[in-house]
């Protein structure tokens, strides 16, 4: 695939602007649902940047994993914990924001200086272009085989860990000793947030 260089530059400018403005919206917008959708836009723009960098496989993986899994997971988490709450005011919040903004601006200036003053060894070897997917497959099954297998173990551990952390079961007695368990440490005795408790409606949460 070959695109004219002017088209590439226009695509790069548009994608960079979308990425930067979207990321600013993610951290600055007061409504977190808008932030989550903007985060999806940022992920899509980054996938477009990958396409400009000859990496179609990683762009597809970015869209599948980030937009399809991580962003949807974040939206589900927002729906599960989205209770209207008024945040308590904190003294010196504006000073903290300005200070951290200054620190981040300094870090940005430092990174830009490093990027623009380092003599990169350009032009490097010719990019493989459309053969990138084949090369990645060769890497994954030869010299990066051990990290590849470890990644599968890591994903299994993350899956089981997420299930264990987020499960809702409440035992009234300790499983091993049979003594009554202190429920205050596990889960507060309260009515669920999303269920209207009327007289005859059953509640979903087990009361200890």
């Amino acid at each position: 695939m070959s695109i004219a260089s002017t088209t590439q530059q226009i695509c790069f400018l548009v994608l960079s602007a979308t990425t930067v403005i979207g990321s600013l919206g993610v951290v600055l917008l007061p409504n977190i649902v808008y932030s989550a959708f903007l985060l999806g836009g940022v992920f899509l723009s980054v996938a477009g940047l990958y396409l400009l960098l000859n990496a179609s496989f990683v762009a597809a993986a970015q869209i599948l994993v980030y937009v399809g899994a991580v962003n949807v997971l974040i939206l589900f988490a927002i729906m599960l914990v989205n209770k209207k709450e008024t945040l308590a005011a904190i003294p010196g919040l504006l000073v903290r924001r300005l200070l951290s903004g200054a620190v981040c601006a300094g870090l940005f200036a430092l990174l830009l200086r490093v990027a623009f003053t380092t003599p990169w060894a350009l032009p490097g070897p010719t990019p493989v272009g459309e053969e990138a997917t084949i090369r990645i497959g060769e890497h994954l099954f030869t010299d990066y085989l051990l990290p590849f297998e470890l990644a599968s173990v890591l994903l299994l551990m993350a899956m089981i860990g997420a299930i264990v952390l987020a499960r809702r079961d409440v035992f009234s007695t300790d499983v091993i000793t049979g003594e009554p368990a202190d429920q205050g440490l596990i889960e507060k005795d309260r009515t669920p947030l999303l269920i209207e408790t009327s007289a005859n409606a059953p509640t979903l949460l087990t009361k200890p």
Partner: protein
Amino acid sequence: MISDAASPIPLEGFLAVAAMLFCVGVWGLINSRNAVRVLMSIELMLNAVNINLMAFSNYLDGQLIRGQVFAIFVITVAAAEAAVGLAILLSLYRNRETVDMERFNLLRW
């Protein structure tokens, strides 16, 4: 796509975008009150690092694209991190009934 020697986009352009994305992520990580937004900021920073890896892989290591393989591993670890992080967040929310980062201070001196 970028096969000619005079590449139309300089390497520094990608590095500048990644630096901006990383700094915005750091600022959001420090200043967010909502715990979900903290996780989103972490994802922004991981994406910035991935852009850097891909840019170097294309411009400086065009034949053995090791940066792309590394970016795939980063994406994998990021997915695992997001799943465990959101599970921890749900567990915290059930115990404290808030997502305010300023109230998660049980271990603070």
